[in-house]
């Protein structure tokens, strides 16, 4: 289990976490889901995740702030930004600031899986999407 990817998923939409957690667990990831950015930040302060997936727009805190803080604290961690349709320009800014990739809403679970697989490859521990772990 030590080679399992540690993922933190932050989105203030409840359903996003509810559906993506099992979706990502199926490809052998260990997923922690947060709705509240502050709690997520607290958790990030405690633990180094391999991948952080965060929404750019949230009521409490900006995804860009999350990006900045994670990047400062855990330079190795890959950060994937979830953006709204109209926010492509902001996503590009995020890329410039060191985000690994971005994914625009609405997306399929497979879309995220692919991005995560890409990130896993970059981290040196590739995932086999075709052989899901049950």
């Amino acid at each position, binding site marked *: 289990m030590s080679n399992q990817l540690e993922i933190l998923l932050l989105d203030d*939409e409840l*359903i*996003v976490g*509810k*559906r*993506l957690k*099992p*979706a990502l667990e199926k490809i052998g990831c260990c997923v922690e889901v947060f709705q509240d950015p502050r709690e997520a930040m607290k958790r990030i302060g405690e633990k180094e995740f391999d991948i952080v997936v965060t929404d750019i*727009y949230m*009521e409490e805190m*900006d995804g860009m702030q999350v990006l900045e803080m994670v990047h400062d604290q855990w330079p190795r961690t890959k950060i994937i930004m979830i953006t*709204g*349709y*109209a*926010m492509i320009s902001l996503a590009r800014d995020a890329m410039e600031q060191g985000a690994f990739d971005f994914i*625009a*809403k*609405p*997306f*399929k*679970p*497979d879309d995220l899986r692919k991005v995560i697989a890409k990130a896993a490859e970059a981290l040196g521990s590739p995932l086999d999407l075709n052989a899901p772990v049950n």
Partner: protein
Amino acid sequence: MEISQHNSENSGSKNEVDGSAKHLYGHIADIREAQQTLMSRLHFSVRKQIYLGNVLVFLFVLVIAVVLILNNEKVQTRLKFLEFVNEFSAEVQQARRYEKNYFLYGTNLSDAIENIHLARLIFTRELNTFAELQDQMTREGILNKIESYESLLGQLFQKQQQNVVELHKTGFSKGIETKLRKYGQDILASAESMMTVEKRALEKSLDQSRDFHIYSILVLLVILTMNAWLLVGRIYTTLSRFSTYAQRIASGDFRPILPKRKFRDEFTDLAVAINEMIKEIDTREAVLIQTHKMRAVGTLTSGVAHELNNPLNNIMLTAHMLLEDYQDLSDDERKDMLKDVTEETDRARKIIRNLLDFARESSSAMESVDLYQLLKETITLLENQIRLAGITVDIQFTDDLPRIHGDAQKLQQVFVNLLLNAMDASSKGGKIQVMGCLEEKADAVKVAVIDYGQGIPRHIVSSVFDPFFTTKPKGKGTGLGLSVSQGIVAKHGGSIKVTSKEGSGSSFNVILPVVTFPELHSFHL
């Protein structure tokens, strides 16, 4: 969102109950009715009044002229008669002088006869003139006396022909002399009295003529004054009324001029033309407002698009996972997922409906409006925009606010404009306050939209409501938002006031009267 739906249904049924929903724009039916009534009235033009006035003055002057000419004729007749009486009395006097000579010296009898004959001729010749002025009795009396006088002289003449010596000293002559003297005196006295009477009559005629002149001038003055007064009154009061109307139209009150007078004239044509103009302006303004609204809708669409992605994403993720794991899921899990899908679909529908409600070209109707409710709905409509801009909007209304009478859709557009402006002025993390309270006199409600942004430089504060005035970068603002907003508020009988301090923010205060334009002061002609 629930609220807005409920409210629109509510207002719909309200209009049906009223049966006479007042519209803010497009008074086309009103105008058509007003036009027809205006044109169907009896025609009495200003031109006719001018003509009529002049004809009346002319007729009056004509009457004066005729009366004066007649009076003049009368004076002339009297003068002629006086001349005749004078001539007549001169002849009689001459006859009497000769008659005296005859009785003293026995001479001039034939001269006397000649003179009295002349006098009689004059008298009979001028009998017609005479007839108008003296009664028949007097006339016949005088004529008789002349004839008697003549016949007495004739008797003397006959005696003289018989060569009676010293006839003038005989008793026969003495007898005749007495009679002659009597007749002569009577004739002269009559002539004298005729002259006196005629002189008096002449004086009277002249006096009358003078008085008539004075009075007719006075009456003419009165008639001319009345004529001018009526004409000026009609033209001046109507023109000043029109200038008031023009000012009101300029301030955005596009109600048509309604018929009030019982007749139709040039001003009616003007009123009809103005009503046509109002119709055009009104339609154009409604189009302008709608066009501008579509711009606001465009701005709001980006927020909606973003907001819409959340439920769409949720549906997509849920549906895919359901498809993927269908066999492995329990019934409860499947149901939970499907419930999520339906709920999220509903959420998406509401997001769109809110914007569509706002975008819809509504038949603007006047209704009772709760401004607090309206502002809350407006903020809900702008929620995505507000969130994207990272701004907080704080709404505070006092409890005692009365409902106002207005067009909720149009007023919402005003507040959307003001809030979007406030958001543009605010920086990220900024705050906008919306405050509602009753005006001091309690006859109006004030809604203030306050931002703490960069403020408006003092030198342009006065131009912010001008059409096409904008401080926003090219392509971002049309410069019509505030102009259109002010137009809408003006239509409600209210106003928008701005106070701003450079560097510390602006406050746009919308003041709306509890009752709109009172019908009492509407346009009439």
